[in-house]
């Protein structure tokens, strides 16, 4: 314990006086560490933090945390340093290293699910507004009532349209910002709805509303299915926990009876 404290103090002092620099060590050996980097890491970081954060800096932070964990555990096991303890500390360091990645990934999954479930509601709203207004006006009117998750994307979209971009690009960028399977298709439909002349609009609107209905139906069914699954798993958990407990009780009683 004392060794650990002493080591920590010495490292802290050296680091503080710029005698050693751990970040430089990581930066110098970066291309070795890049082997450890997951393929979609950059993408996940961008999805969560946008452009504000540099994935490389975050990655070197991860490596640093992993190393610190390994070294700390080695110090802790220093008095009984066996091979298993060494492996254990490496595994723990790797676990710390992977932790951020898995949290990013689970965030991304949750985020996608939220978009998936909210998109039909937003599009239904758009469908009603599109009957009375042109598409850009309908979009700007829908911002207030749109689900919160879409608001920033919508603001960007409307800004680009107002700046004079009448191509499909702003719509596609919106779809890319919310990358669920239906968003690209629906945004393309929306763009075409905006392009069409007033006479065709009615037919196109009917087409659009049919797609939205199908989407809504799908989302609803998905929701119900998920809810039933949760209920089922709750029941199963209850059965498992209590039934298992009773089993253990029975076994215990049998063992004690043998002893008697």
């Amino acid at each position: 314990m004392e060794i650990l404290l002493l080591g920590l103090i010495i490292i802290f002092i050296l680091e503080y006086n710029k005698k050693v620099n751990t970040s430089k060590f990581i930066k110098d050996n970066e291309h070795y560490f890049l082997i450890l980097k997951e393929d979609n890491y950059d993408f996940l970081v961008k999805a969560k933090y946008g452009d504000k954060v540099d994935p490389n800096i975050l990655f070197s932070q991860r490596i640093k945390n992993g190393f610190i964990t390994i070294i700390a555990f080695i110090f802790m096991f220093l008095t009984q340093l066996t091979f298993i303890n060494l492996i254990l500390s490496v595994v723990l360091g790797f676990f710390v290293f992977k932790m951020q990645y898995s949290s990013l990934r689970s965030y991304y999954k949750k985020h996608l699910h939220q978009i998936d479930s909210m998109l039909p509601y937003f599009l239904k709203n758009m469908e009603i507004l599109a009957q009375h207004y042109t598409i850009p006006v309908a979009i700007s009117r829908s911002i207030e009532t749109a689900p919160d998750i879409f608001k920033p994307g919508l603001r960007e979209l409307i800004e680009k349209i107002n700046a004079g971009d009448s191509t499909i690009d702003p719509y596609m960028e919106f779809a890319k910002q919310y990358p669920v399977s239906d968003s690209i298709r629906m945004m393309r439909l929306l763009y075409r709805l905006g392009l069409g002349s007033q006479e065709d609009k009615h037919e196109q609107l009917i087409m659009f509303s049919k797609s939205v209905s199908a989407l809504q139906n799908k989302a609803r069914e998905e929701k119900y299915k998920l809810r039933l699954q949760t209920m089922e798993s709750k029941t199963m958990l209850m059965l498992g926990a209590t039934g298992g407990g009773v089993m253990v009780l029975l076994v215990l009683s049998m063992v004690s009876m043998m002893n008697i």
Partner: protein
Amino acid sequence: MLLDIDTLVEGVLKDRMERSTFHKAFLQYGILLYLLVMLVQYLLGIDTYLTLLDMTIVKFLLHAIILVNSYFLINGEKYYNENVGAE
């Protein structure tokens, strides 16, 4: 639009029926599990059961089983009743 409402009503009704069957099964299981503890008593016979009860671990286990079961029942019941979702 009318077709939409039709499918919506159908979906909601179907879901409600499914949920009520699930709910019933859930409650039945929950109560059966309480009965399971009584069954253990019956299987072991009163005398052995009483001697077993003197052991602290058995006492602890029995309490834990009842508490865990109650927790699951209440938690599940809350879930069934609250998460209806307005359509």
